[in-house]
């Protein structure tokens, strides 16, 4: 069982994430935590100097963070995007597709089950934030 998963090659970011309000007040932080009801677009002017954005998933049913992830990636954010909270095995795949590349689940995950889940679908239907080509792209080149 693992307490965290990370799909990045760079060194883990050590600076603790500050709240969105604190980040918007003090402009030198490089890590921020977004609660599920906070607007990811408020971070867009600052993406260049952010190394870590942690998005809260207070309950796995709360899907707002998926949109936050995509919005950040669509705006060109390349730093660590971490899903934190009630993150379960079966949520990792859609989170990866929405651009999350690090996970801090409340409860440890079985890495083998995560690997099975991530490798299960060899095809996808939509273009999302993970660069995978949708079926229509493969059909038509």
């Amino acid at each position, binding site marked *: 069982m693992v307490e965290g998963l990370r799909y990045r090659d760079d060194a883990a970011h050590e600076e603790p994430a500050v709240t969105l309000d604190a980040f918007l007040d003090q402009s030198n932080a490089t890590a921020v935590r977004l609660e599920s009801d906070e*607007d990811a677009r408020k971070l867009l002017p600052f993406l260049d100097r952010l190394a870590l954005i942690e998005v809260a998933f207070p309950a*796995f*049913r*709360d*899907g*707002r963070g*998926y*949109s936050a992830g*995509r919005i950040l990636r*669509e705006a060109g954010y390349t730093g660590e995007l971490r899903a934190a909270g009630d993150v*379960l095995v*079966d*949520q990792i*795949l*859609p*989170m990866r*597709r*929405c651009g999350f590349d690090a996970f801090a689940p409340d409860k440890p995950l*079985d890495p083998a*089950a995560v690997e*099975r*889940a991530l490798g*299960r*679908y*060899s*095809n*996808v*239907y*939509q*273009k*999302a934030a993970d660069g995978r080509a*949708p*079926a*229509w*792209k*493969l*059909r*038509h080149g």
Partner: protein
Amino acid sequence: MYKYDTYDQSIVDARVEEFRDQVARRMAGELTEDQFKPLRLMNGLYLQLHAYMLRVAVPYGTLDSRQMHMLAHIARKYDKGYGHFTTRQNIQYNWIELKDAGDILADLATVEMHAIQTSGNCIRNTTSDQYAGAAADEVADPRPWAELLRQWSTFHPEFTYLPRKFKVAIIASDEDRAAMRLHDIGLQLTQNEAGETGFKVYVGGGMGRTPMVAPLIRDFLPAADYLSYLEACLRVYNRYGRRDNIYKARIKILVHEIGADEYRRQVEEEFLHVKTLGIDPPAEEFERINAFFAQPAWEQGLSDELDLSDPDFKLWVDQNVFAHKAPGYAIATISLKPIGGIPGDASADQIDLMADLAETYSFDELRVTHSQNIVLPHVRKADLYTLWQKLDAAGLATANLDLISDMIACPGLDYCSLANARSIPVAQKISQRFADREADLGELKLKISGCINACGHHHAGHIGILGVDRKGTENYQLLLGGSGAEDASLGRITGPGFDEDGIVDAIERTLDRYVATREPGERFLDTYRRVGFETFKEAIYG
């Protein structure tokens, strides 16, 4: 009909394996029921009063005989020999064991079927006009667009944990046979003045506790922007839809609270951004899908003559047969509402027979309707009499389409763990009470829900019935004046509710007043709208 290629098949096959894995983890105790619940729901598996219920997707209600035979096979092998066709043009099985769920999905996958997103807080099976591709009044077949939407919405990573379920309907005629404006998103395929194809987009309709008719959000959405615009509609909802109260979580509440204009503004702003992402497939992908829906090879030069000398056959033709776009052909509806029966139920033998008849007489195609019947969309008029005889021999020739006994009813407290009252016995009593006079009563859409969730569409019934729990006893409220058609409206509660027999009596008083006050050619709904609510209230309560 659409046929899977290797991409489609690989996704459905992977789903079978994924769900087997999830079931195994649940049965091993690695997943709690709370954690398993959203996973099984995303696959149409509900825990009901007596057993698991599995809902199988019939995308936009279209299927072929091979798929229909598979539905019969599942009814026989895994259920008690019957299935229940639903208002989402799907079929559900009420007596499923959890251990069999993986095998059922594997069986379904062999005929390009699945149970993906037939429940859960995600984009549900898209519904459409049951006469699509056959009706004379459509601008084009809406189903290729529905298939495009099926693929886009299947495992959409951003919209898997929406605030609440999300239902889309697509039609292509001014006559609305799919209750389009009572959906979270309703799309009407249309053409603009320049002859270009696009959609009217309605957002924020729905039934349930707070019924609403969807307002128009986009007058003309060009076809090339179809999926980008839907993505924007969903993203605004996913971010800002309410999550604090399950009863206020549907998109209709968001649209209502911020207003259609503000919702439209937010969607248009999001759309400008989303459109830059390259989400819309190229026109070649639409053409690929569209080719699967090419017109069947209808015979040319057929006669429209029909021998109606058999009076029972004539009754059925007059009631259950609809005009087809090709000369010499007809659209035939098989009623799953025998007098006194359970609306929408069919036995495995009946399902097999309907599959065989589709193969022989309807270019191998069937449709499930949102009012829980089956359609054979392309029948030669010359074959109608033989078809009718075979249906009649199997108890499938009830001539009651759109009459009072052709009612929609949810499973109710006989099956459903959410229900407050039984729906089926009320449906049966109404059917029996009014069968003799229903031809005279004319078009009358009666819809019954066993609880406020409104699966039986009671808000949209010309006559609606809502079962409630009143101090521990089943009580039925009466609603009048709803419509799910192009003249969409919501029914109004008449007053205090009734017990099971009382509601049937109240409907009789309502209908007696209708007969006494109608003008020639008026349907019940027309009379109600002309003379008003109070006249009927007075008739009901004295």
